[in-house]
């Protein structure tokens, strides 16, 4: 629980970014699982009012990057800067306290708990020492309807929900408590057309309220719809950082697959 900086703090500060301090920066982050180098020297800045899409092939290291921002993975090397302050993000609870909310690729729900219990897990509302079920249930309906979710009962165990409903619950959980940085790992993979649209609208709304969003996705249509910046990971390394307005679909695909494309750039900073 302590905020000890127990990973490599000796890195020089990365290339400085353009206007505005990032809410969240990763500097020279590397992480290995045994012999697998999941991330190698990755820099990433998330600014306020910005949606950063992280794309890459399967196994490129996207979820590892998400885990590091969520506090579930402590990287082997590199540092994490929140609000200009370098710190060791050593627990998921700490990340939440700092306002970093995450939707995990596997959703991280507890099947035996109902929707309300999952939404407020680890951040329950209390009233005189005991759980305030009424307030939590009321808020649950509110945040779910904001996402256009269709659930019959917020008191059914999430094991009984459909894949899309579960995904909506996970997204709703991340939105509770008004996070400053919203990290989403494949948030629309299981969603239908309407729900996907709602989630994309929500992402834009979070951005417009001044927060930063990291969106990991395989869905290029989603990325192009909401992203301001597209960061490409390839085999654990940064392989491109594009302005979403200017980059073409082909540029991004080329960076993902590693086939060289004429306008491919390799910069760690921001272009626009």
């Amino acid at each position, binding site marked *: 629980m302590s905020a000890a900086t127990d990973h490599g703090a000796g890195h020089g500060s990365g290339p400085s970014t353009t206007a505005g301090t990032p809410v969240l920066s990763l500097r020279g982050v590397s992480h290995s699982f045994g012999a697998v180098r999941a991330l190698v020297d990755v820099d990433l800045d998330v600014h306020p009012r910005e949606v950063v899409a992280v794309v890459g092939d399967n196994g490129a290291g996207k979820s590892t990057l998400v885990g590091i921002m969520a506090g579930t993975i402590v990287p082997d090397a590199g540092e994490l800067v929140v609000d200009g302050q370098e710190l060791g993000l050593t627990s998921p609870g700490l990340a939440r306290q700092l306002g970093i909310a995450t939707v995990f690729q596997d959703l991280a729900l507890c*099947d035996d*708990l109902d929707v309300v219990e999952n939404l407020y897990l680890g951040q329950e509302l209390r009233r005189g020492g005991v759980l305030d079920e009424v307030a939590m249930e009321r808020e649950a309906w509110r945040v779910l309807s904001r996402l256009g979710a269709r659930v019959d009962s917020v008191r059914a165990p999430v094991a009984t929900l459909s894949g899309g409903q579960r995904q909506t619950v996970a997204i709703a959980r991340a939105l509770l408590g008004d996070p400053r940085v919203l990290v989403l790992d494949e948030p629309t993979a299981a969603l239908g057309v309407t729900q996907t649209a709602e989630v994309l609208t929500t992402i834009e709304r979070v951005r417009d309220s001044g927060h930063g969003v990291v969106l990991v996705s395989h869905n290029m249509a989603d990325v192009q719809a909401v992203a301001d910046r597209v960061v490409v990971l390839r085999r654990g390394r940064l392989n491109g950082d594009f302005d979403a307005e200017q980059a073409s679909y082909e540029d991004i695909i080329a960076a993902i697959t590693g086939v060289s494309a004429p306008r491919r750039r390799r910069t760690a900073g921001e272009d626009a």
Partner: protein
Amino acid sequence: MSGTALDLSWRHGGAPWGRWRGEPGPWPVIGALVVLSLVFQAVNGNFLSADNLVNLTLQSASLGIITLGVVLVLMVGQIDLSVGAVSGLAAAVVAVGFVQQGWPLWVAVLTAVLLGAGIGGVYGLLTTRLGLPSFVVTLAGLLVAVGLQVRVLGSTGSVNLPYESWLVRFAQQTFLHPVASYAVVALVLAAYVGSRLLERRRRVEAELSAASLPTVAGRAAVLAVVLLVPTWYLNTDRGVGAMVALFVGLVVVADLLLRRTAWGRSVRAVGSNVDSARRAGIAVRRVYVTCFMACTALAALGGVLSAGRLAAANQGTGGSDLNLTAIAAAVIGGTSLFGGRGSAWSAVLGVLVIQAISSGLTLLNVDSSVRYVVTGVVLALAVTIDAVSRRRSEAGGGVRR
């Protein structure tokens, strides 16, 4: 908007009689209890006599307290195989401390219970810090506790507690005065109705679906019958034993902790999916450690009470099949072996089933071999119900982790 806390099965954190689609709830166990009672009563008219039922409740109390601890550990998806041995060790500590060392009795009792909690703390640390499986850690703990029990009891191997000590009197001869028992029932009913009405009003104010007034009244009436009939019947004989009242009181406290506090919620979350619970920011280790400690502390308390009831502690206290009986009782009562689902009340139901079988077969003068077989069959049935209902809810669950 449908769905209220009342729709929820007790195993998912709802009220004890809560029910949820496709979930059997406590009904199979209650059904089993009714069937067992009718069968035994048909064969031997003494089974349902007030005298026999008072004995049955007294025999249930210490095993029930141990089972309550097992329920907590099962809820987080762990197991404690050493509850019997820990209860035996606690009994030995009380007897030797009080009789041979001359400690004040309350000091001896407190020491035994704290020792129990300490053992659970060690289990918790070994499983969370070193990642050892609780199965093995508690098996090792069982052996250590048995060894300590023999050592503490010394060469005689048995220590008698004086009949006039309060522990023995509490466990053997203290019964709630009938007036007191009815007063407790009235208080519980008033608290229940009050909290229901309060919750109803808040839900209506929040524009959530709320139980109708007739529903609240109906449930209160059912609760009144469930509480008053046994109290009245036991009062026609010796009454409600103090130890029985203590057991039920502990169950009520555990039930409220599990359903109404953040700790209880984290217990169910950890049992359901540790990894998700950790990523939700729950201090998973603390949850494990508190459950192990509560389990062994309750086991120690159960051992102390059984020493009081027998007015003695010996090498056999807490031995033989007590471990397995307590675990079987928790599962028969409806707590899942797979973690995440259960209720404090399953300790009551499970222990009643086990003791009904034991008492009924004793009345029939049947060999203990039959008792083991019958208990084993009931346990197998309970696990089957658990596994089937789990599979069914998974089948409806779409994507799983």
